[in-house]
């Protein structure tokens, strides 16, 4: 479809700008140029979503049913939990993030995705790297560093394939025909730029040439929190900034607010890694600077929250009609909730209670699932019909998916946040024994909350199965249509 796309080498010559411009890029042409790559990424994302959900459910069940699958070494809790984390973070979330950011860049730069075969190879390499990494974790080769458990023999593959995709984003950006930079493009470029720096510094200073002592913890949580804040969050916010105005047909409420939101997020977010170590063996100033940065995060969160909310003002009734809008608004509001919860958790007096408890886990899932994953679902529901030129086969499946995921994650977060806080209060009260089978003790009082979480895990799994069925169904229809087109090329398609 995309004729005359410039070769890679020519893309580096500064003179090369005008002759591509005459060729009017139609939205449809841009979408079809990304189709192959996006279906690869979204397909991989759906597969990792199911695998990650099953791992998560297994880990959750093990927490209140210790003998469940306890006799095989590679299914012990200590391996299933990191496998869950990597399957959903580097499997589902990163695949979806890469696909959505590539598509958004193409759409916003008004230029088709050039040389898609390189992006496809990078996508296959990324998923291969994640698969080998998770197999390594289950086999017991985990590096033992949170968020970086993927062993050393798989992480270079991740880095190289990521770098290829990031280069593709920048080249597509280099040929943009839309001179103006929409706010989503700042966030996407920030994300595509930050991840390689974070991942390479973390791999070098923690796995190849480990630094000495607790400095490893500093680097680990500088990376850990920034992979959330400078890789997933910007892409989530970029998606919300694009899809809510696009679906509603209403421009963003106040563009100047988005300026403040972007720069304050860039400034404060990457300083707050050490709030994971409040009370830990690190100098007081390091923890204080992260607590200040965490509290200052209220500025970008309030700014972005208001911007989206007023964009939606007067249009909330349309949530009934648009699935994409539902996921986006749910994700946007969850972003505000998770960030304010995070600000609370980082204060020393609150962290004394909630540190080391399930309240942190509830906060993590509000951020990674209620905000980022729901936004990615919304983006997929918008993008796939446009790249396959087909509508979603069943509205019922979309409704099942939305309500199962939304209610499931609420049933996950609220009980676990409450249970975690109570667990924290019991843990800092030395008169409550840590473990006493028939008395009020820290371990026995958290059990009911852990069981409710497993129930919410099943509900979310139902939602994901509905989503996977929808996705497979629409891809099958597209393949049939494509084969039909090959069989009789005479019927013009555009």
């Amino acid at each position, binding site marked *: 479809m995309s004729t005359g796309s410039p070769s890679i080498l020519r893309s580096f010559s500064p003179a090369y700008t005008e002759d591509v411009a005459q060729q009017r890029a139609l939205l449809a042409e841009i979408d079809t140029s990304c189709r192959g790559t996006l279906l690869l990424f979204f397909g991989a994302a759906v597969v990792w979503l199911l695998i990650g959900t099953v791992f998560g459910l297994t880990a959750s069940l093990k927490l209140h049913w210790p003998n469940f699958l306890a006799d095989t070494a590679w299914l012990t809790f200590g391996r299933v939990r990191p496998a869950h984390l990597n399957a959903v973070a580097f499997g589902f979330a990163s695949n979806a993030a890469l696909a959505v950011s590539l598509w958004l860049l193409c759409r916003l730069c008004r230029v088709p995705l050039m040389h898609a075969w390189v992006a496809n190879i990078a996508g296959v390499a990324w998923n291969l790297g994640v698969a080998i990494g998770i197999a390594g974790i289950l086999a017991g080769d985990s590096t033992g560093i949170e968020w970086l458990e993927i062993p050393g023999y798989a992480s270079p593959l991740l880095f190289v394939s990521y770098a290829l995709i990031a280069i593709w984003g920048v080249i597509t950006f280099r040929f943009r025909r839309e001179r103006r930079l929409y706010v989503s493009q700042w966030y996407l470029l920030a994300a595509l730029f930050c991840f390689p720096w974070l991942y390479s510094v973390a791999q070098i200073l923690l796995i190849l040439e480990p630094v000495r002592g607790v400095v490893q913890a500093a680097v680990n949580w500088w990376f850990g929190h920034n992979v959330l804040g400078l890789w997933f969050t910007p892409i989530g916010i970029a998606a919300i900034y694009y899809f809510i105005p696009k679906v509603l047909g209403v421009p963003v409420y106040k563009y100047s607010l988005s300026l403040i939101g972007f720069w304050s997020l860039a400034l404060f977010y990457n300083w707050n890694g050490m709030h994971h170590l409040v009370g830990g063996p690190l100098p007081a100033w390091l923890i204080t600077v992260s607590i200040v940065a965490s509290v200052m995060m209220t500025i970008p969160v309030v700014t972005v929250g208001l911007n989206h909310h007023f964009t939606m003002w007067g249009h909330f009734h349309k949530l009934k009609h648009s699935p994409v809008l539902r996921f986006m608004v749910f994700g946007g509001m969850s972003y505000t909730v998770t960030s304010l919860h995070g600000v609370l958790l980082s204060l020393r007096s609150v962290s004394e209670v909630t540190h080391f408890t399930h309240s942190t886990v509830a906060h993590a899932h509000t951020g990674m699932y209620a905000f980022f994953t729901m936004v990615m679902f919304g983006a997929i529901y918008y993008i796939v019909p446009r790249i396959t030129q087909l509508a*979603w086969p069943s509205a019922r499946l979309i409704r099942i998916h939305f309500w199962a995921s939304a209610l499931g994650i609420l049933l996950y977060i609220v009980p676990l946040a409450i249970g975690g806080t109570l667990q924290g209060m019991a843990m800092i009260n030395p008169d409550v024994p840590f473990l006493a089978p028939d008395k009020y003790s820290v371990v026995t009082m958290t059990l009911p909350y852990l069981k409710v979480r497993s129930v919410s895990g099943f509900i979310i799994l139902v939602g994901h199965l509905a989503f996977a069925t929808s996705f497979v169904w629409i891809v099958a229809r597209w393949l049939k249509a494509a084969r039909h087109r090959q069989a009789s090329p005479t019927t013009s398609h555009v």
Partner: protein
Amino acid sequence: MRPDMSVVWILFVSSVIVLPAVALLALRWALRNGEFKHLQKTALSIFDEEEPVGRMTDRFPDEPQGSQAHEP
């Protein structure tokens, strides 16, 4: 407790002098070059005649095209 001067200098110089200085320079350059003039136009840059302002571009597949409330 004598403050540990090496870190104070690094933190102070890097985030209290260099970063704000460059930020202010960039802000001055941006103001000069009219980066802030057509902010609202940029907000509209994502719309065009295929997906114009004022029209919903997403609906449940089982709802006919015209059913949801159009823009006033």
